[in-house]
């Protein structure tokens, strides 16, 4: 469509929201503590230097490394760290040349305590100039064995915090 309104919209930002029966501190930990991050989603350990300008590295999991992946899957820099409420960072997929070439995207986690011990987690991923990474994180490459993107990651995060159980790790491509 080529309406005036269409031009003003942001097609390159993705927004995800999930409600988790856990404290904001637990949700913050699940995002920033490597002992949690290796238990859901892509299952790699996260390394955060949680201050503005601090480094972020998302390590490849054992299975990825066994298949020849580099040690670091994602890198970036912390822009704002306000535990347990808000984390803003840059985020660059460095596994795969084409995606690495798309450069740094901007990722924001917003954590809000709600009623009844339920915490609202909102993930905003600004993906301007990164169409391949956008496809990956939207789950559009799941049938190639690339995982289900943010909705899959957040579903796993919710499950591990609420039940202690991990969903399956990175699923194999469907046969």
């Amino acid at each position, binding site marked *: 469509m080529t309406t005036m*309104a269409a031009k003003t919209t942001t097609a390159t930002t993705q927004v*995800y929201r999930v409600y988790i029966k856990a404290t904001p501190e637990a949700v913050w930990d699940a995002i920033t503590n490597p002992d949690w991050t290796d238990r859901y989603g892509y299952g790699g350990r996260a390394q955060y230097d949680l201050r503005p300008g601090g480094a972020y590295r998302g390590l490849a999991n054992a299975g990825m490394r066994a298949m020849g992946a580099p040690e670091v899957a994602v890198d970036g820099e912390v822009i704002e760290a306000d535990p347990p409420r808000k984390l803003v960072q840059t985020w660059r997929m460095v596994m795969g040349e084409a995606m690495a070439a798309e450069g740094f995207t901007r990722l924001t986690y917003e954590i809000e305590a709600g009623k009844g011990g339920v915490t609202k987690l909102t993930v905003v991923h600004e993906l301007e100039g990164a169409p391949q990474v956008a496809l990956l994180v939207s789950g559009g490459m799941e049938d190639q064995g690339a995982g289900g993107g943010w909705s899959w990651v957040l579903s796993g995060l919710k499950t591990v915090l609420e039940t202690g159980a991990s969903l399956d790790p990175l699923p194999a491509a469907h046969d």
Partner: protein
Amino acid sequence: MDDDDRVFRALADPTRRLLLDRLFARDGRTLTDLESGLEMTRFGVMKHLKVLEGADLVVARRSGREKLHFLNPVPIRLIHDRWIDKYTERRVAALTELKNQLEEDTA
């Protein structure tokens, strides 16, 4: 009503599914943009968006003076991961494949 009930209720309406399809095609849209071409009043579209927001299938965010609507697929993923994965994924995949095949043949 629990979260899953809200999702199923929100999905049980063709206009609301159409709105989700529009956001899937292009995300982050204003109300004005979303209602264009729909044979429905602005108020009607707003009401449907409210139901979708209540089920968290749509998340609205301010961007400057605009309110943008984003498709949030997480509630559908949760239903998928909790139920469908558990006992039907293979069969669902096989049936989806068969359906695609048949539709291709008749296209």
